[in-house]
């Protein structure tokens, strides 16, 4: 239960950090290669937030584009998928960015 489980994690982490203060906004970073669909997180968020200090909070999601580095020639490559071919012909690409799944910041009302 992937996005639902992930959203439950988000609510649990933010609730813990916020304590008794109400949360106005939650900002996430989701990499485009993370296998997580932002829309599915948005879909789950309001449901998971109900009855918690996050209820009614705004959800902002910053999507991070994929970036890889070729292990053969060192070139940096934009990644739309995990698999890519470098212009030098190598398939050995290390993913530098795009797999993020982070809670960047929260805004609370004291």
């Amino acid at each position: 239960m992937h996005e639902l489980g992930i959203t439950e994690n988000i609510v649990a982490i933010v609730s813990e950090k916020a304590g008794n203060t109400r949360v106005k906004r939650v900002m996430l970073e989701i990499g485009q290669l993370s296998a997580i669909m932002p829309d599915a997180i948005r879909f789950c968020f309001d449901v998971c937030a109900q009855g918690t200090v996050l209820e009614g909070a705004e959800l902002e999601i910053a999507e991070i584009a994929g970036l890889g580095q070729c292990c053969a020639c060192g070139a940096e490559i934009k990644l739309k998928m995990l698999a890519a071919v470098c212009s030098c012909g190598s398939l050995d690409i290390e993913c530098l960015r795009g797999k993020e799944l982070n809670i960047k910041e929260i805004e609370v009302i004291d």
Partner: protein
Amino acid sequence: MCVTCGCSDDSATKMTSTAVHSHEHDHTHEHEHKHDHTHEPTSMQKGRVITLEEKILAKNDHIAEHNREWFESVNVLALNLVSSPGSGKTALLERTISDLKNKVEIAVLEGDQATSNDAERIRRAGCSVLQINTGAGCHLDASMIASALKELKPTHNSLLLIENVGNLVCPALFDLGEKHKVVVLSITEGEDKPIKYPHMFRAAEIMLLNKIDLLPHLNFDIEACKQYALSVNPKLKIIEVSATTGQGLEQWYEWLMAGIAC
């Protein structure tokens, strides 16, 4: 609810509209005097920003790391077997247990949404097994493994085979603390599965191409399949096997035994 794999039961029925502006007060609004204050919705109030920079899966990763440390401390080779449903994971385990049980101690954790059918099969094959039913969940997570280990208690210098829920998407995200992921792909599936589900094939150390005995009866391009797999994971080790005839299993066993000896 999990839109990626469609796994869920009653989650949709929980969808109800959420009131952004809800407040409780014991007076009514029937009074006639005017007042110039407004009940500010949360969105209008100024807040204090707290930077978290926290990984959403940090808790799972933390427990997985504990599992991994424990496996290393008692020299248990823990493998996470992943595949789509019906690839033959359980048959492969049955055969592996039957062929190796006199050489190494083996224990199995069986993950399924429901039933203990697979655990029964593994028990009959002759090793200790614990069934984990995930209910609506579509993958095992590290805390399920941590709890199961307390009950299963794998012995020192043994092999722990974790059969994950049949699903090529979600299990790729959840580290269990295993040494390696073993992806099983059967040739009754499409040869392009590796590029359709790149995360899983990328995360795996080894791919077992199962049901190879059926090749004469199918239109399956083995070389294309291997190329697809290597295009998402150039380091992937690929072994063609048949859990039914035993073809290719010696190579799989050699890889397993080398992992335990390390």
